[in-house]
């Protein structure tokens, strides 16, 4: 009996030595580490960032709309909060409209949003309880643009390849989201999420977010072209970034009412 226990122990240790990932895949800590790295790579590269963005929104009937704006972002060095401003230039109807967000990464804390309406010279505070609503009519949600707080989900490793790892995530508060779970594929070299598949109650993928093209800019791996697809209607939105710059010397007072009325052009070009 004692010999059998020794052999079984030896066999178990051998198996662990051969296949470390399969055992590691059951560890939520390992999965959380990947999720943290992906969140940092996708939304927290550089303390500040500026990018010019354009979107092509195609609905299920193949009708097209276009959006163009410039995005400014600054991280709070003490926590995961962020400040963002979106300066719209297209379509003409929203030209010079500015959207300001103070993202609060804490649980159960909604973001603070303001909208500047140039025709009225009015800064209006906006009620913002649901982050999973369309961002400016596109298939991207506000949460896709500002980042979903990974503390709201639990993660486990679904698949571990040499170059990619896939995490299966479920929301801690299922009633707060429309998905049952999502599968996020992370590039091990860049830590960027390259694909996110959202699954419904039947296990069918109904929505997909993809990084179409990535580049390294100032040492930061960056998604420069992405796509969100509504697999139910056939609609999608293509988003393209250019003129990306990190670590701009943007002070906190740029993210105030003054910039809504008088955009800081020195940071927008």
């Amino acid at each position, binding site marked *: 009996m004692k010999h059998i226990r020794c052999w079984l122990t030896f066999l178990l240790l051998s198996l662990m030595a051969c296949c470390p990932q399969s055992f590691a895949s059951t560890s939520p800590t390992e999965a959380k580490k990947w999720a943290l790295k992906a969140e940092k790579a996708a939304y927290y590269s550089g303390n500040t960032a500026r990018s010019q963005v354009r979107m092509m929104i195609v609905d299920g009937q193949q009708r097209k709309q276009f959006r163009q704006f410039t995005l400014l972002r600054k991280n709070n060095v003490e926590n995961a909060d962020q400040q963002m401003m979106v300066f719209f230039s297209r379509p003409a*109807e929203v030209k*010079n409209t500015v959207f300001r967000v103070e993202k609060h990464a804490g649980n159960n804390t909604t973001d603070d949003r303001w909208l500047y309406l140039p025709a009225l010279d009015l800064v209006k505070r906006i009620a913002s309880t649901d982050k999973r609503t369309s961002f400016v009519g596109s298939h991207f949600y506000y949460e896709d643009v500002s980042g979903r707080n990974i503390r709201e989900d639990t993660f486990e490793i679904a698949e571990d390849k040499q170059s990619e790892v896939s995490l299966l995530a479920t929301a801690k508060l299922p009633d707060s989201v429309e998905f049952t779970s999502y599968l996020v594929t992370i590039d091990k070299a860049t830590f960027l999420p390259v694909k996110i598949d959202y699954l419904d109650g039947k296990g069918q993928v109904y929505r997909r977010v993809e990084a179409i093209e990535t580049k390294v800019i100032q040492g930061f791996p960056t998604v420069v072209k992405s796509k969100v697809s509504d697999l139910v209607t056939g609609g999608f939105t293509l988003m393209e970034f250019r003129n990306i710059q990190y670590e701009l010397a943007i002070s906190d007072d740029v993210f105030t009412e003054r910039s809504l009325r008088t955009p800081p*052009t020195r940071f927008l070009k």
Partner: protein
Amino acid sequence: MRLIVLLTLFLFTQWLNAQEMAESADSVWEEAWTDWEDDSTLNAFFEIGMGNRFHRDPALLQAATMRDTRLNISWQKALDRISMSPEVELVHDAVTKKFTLNVRELSASLATFEKADIKIGRQILTWGVGDYLFLNDLFPKDFQSFFNGRDDRYLKAPSDAIKFSYFHTLLTLDVIYSPRFEPDNYINGEYFSFYQPAINGNTSTSPHVQLPNGGEWSTRISTQLGRSDIALYASQGFARSPLSTDMQGAPAHHKMKSIGLSVVVPSSVGLLKAEYSYYSIPRGQALISHPPNESRWLFGIDTEIATSLVLNLQLYTEQFHNKQPHEANNVAVSNRWLLTTGLNYTTPRQYWSFKAFHFYSIEDNDGYLRLSSSYKFNDTTSITTGINYFYGKKPTTSFNQFEKASNAYVRMRWYF
């Protein structure tokens, strides 16, 4: 005839847009981002609007409440420390039979100092937290445009002003000086009749009103405390509507001062907002009668009750002071309570939006309902239809006096 023109223009633009989309639908994503290379940009839209009242108004001959043909041109030029943003409109109004050049904005913004900006010229000025209710926003309004279905932007009328803004880490100070008084475009009979106590009925005849001479000052200090927005207000100027009577017995704009404050607080149920203002009428004015001093209160909440569906509720009151009988020069007024309900919905791709807003006067038991629906055919073409409906029991009350003003309208806009 106008409807035929509207339909023809619509079909033509749809054909044009289809050609543009067919030719460039796939190529547009490969085109250069030329929009970003130019510091100055010219924008324009063309709009046709038509509206008719539901019922004949004996005080007004025309059934038309809106017959607009409008060309709006705006231009932005931003240099290092100065930016300019002129906006002009050529408008043909077949109701008033006028062809006008409206200058909505002709100003220059100067980033003169590191922490201060100055904006000089004709501009739209807005502050306060109410939706369609104004306590500390005493800048000129256009209520005729509000009632006849023009775009919401036209509720705010432009004024000539110098606006100085100082930006400190802890607060922002705005000081506005308008050298020339500009009244509200109140209901004066051009489009809608109004109740006249002297004849105990509605009239479309408005007497000439002498405008006061003198400048006006408005000030606001705003700050963010935690996640809440707080502002203090003060102003000195004249009442926008001629609510007083001068020594010749004519309507007059009395001098007035105001102070106030507003707060917006985010909560788990939505945005909570409150605003207060106090209007005081300085003594010693050459007036036979004037309204008494007044306090206005507003409490409201904005909340998203479903995806892209926002509900707005407001409770508003006007409380008059010094209404004692011995105050012989006070205009007879009564306290007022309003309950407003607003709903805004936009479809996910923003092709269609729906707005409803209802004013209800609790003591008068009358109200005003605004419904509008907008549909975007594409990024450049949209159509808006809507209804303005006034109701009540007595023909003399604030809203129901405009019962014959109830109207429906349609507007089409093309950006190019």
